[in-house]
């Protein structure tokens, strides 16, 4: 386990699989929107997202993001250990 590549893969796998696991449960960011609707039922967002992926695509974008982040953290750790 010396090469930066294996560290990167390890990081990607670790973070990616945590993100991919179907934990369930409603996210707090969504619940906050629900609370806005409760407090101000008449409020309508005045701008829509630039790009709105389907739920399935969104899930994998999050997995991708976690995996890429994990890979870079792993890679950086390997670089520091070799330094």
């Amino acid at each position, binding site marked *: 386990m010396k090469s930066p590549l294996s560290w990167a893969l390890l990081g990607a796998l670790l973070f990616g699989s945590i993100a991919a696991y179907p934990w369930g449960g409603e996210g707090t960011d969504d619940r906050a929107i629900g609370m806005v609707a409760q407090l101000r039922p008449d409020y309508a967002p005045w701008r829509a997202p630039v790009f709105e992926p389907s739920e399935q695509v969104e899930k994998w974008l999050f997995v991708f993001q976690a995996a890429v982040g994990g890979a*870079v953290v792993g890679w950086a750790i390997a670089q520091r250990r070799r330094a």
Partner: protein
Amino acid sequence: MHIAEGFLPFAHAAAWTAAAVPAIADGLRQLNRRVAEDRSQRYLLAAAAAFTFALSALKLPSVAGSSSHPTGVALGTILFGPRIMSVIGTLVLLFQALLLAHGGLTTLGANAFSMAIAGPWMAWAVYKLLARFGTAPSTFVAAFAADLFTYTMTATQLALAFPAADGGFAASVSRFLGVFGVTQLPLAIFEGLLTVFVLRSLQPQTKEALA
């Protein structure tokens, strides 16, 4: 803590953006100076950015069928200070708003203020305050506090925009805190532990670095 696109009224969105911009501009100058001084910092910079990038997208389960995500800002704050971390955090939020429909451009200023400015400054203050207890304990509490403070800030921002009909701002802030509070607590502990672990892993292992 990502307030969704369009979910702050225009005046609020503009005010938070105006509040965030000077801090980010200042951080950008700091960042340029730091990287110009020492190019070996770029691995750490990549790690700090990637850590926030991954953690702020990592939806984790919590109590009572709820889930939320950590923020990961304490690592970069301890490595680079809160001023530089504000740039890193904002870049991550911008990317998420543009490509992942997570957060938004109109709410970027508010989200940057909570996650990339308030969170890191809290992490920094706690880290400095507890430094004499050693790196690991101060890192843990710094990350824990930054996580919770970021969500408290978000609750405050939402409550300012949407005061309750009965009880106004105070009632509203407690309701938004109710949304985040209990869910966030276990995640803040997890974030604290993970930050300690990653920070320790990033320390150079050679005698050259020990010198």
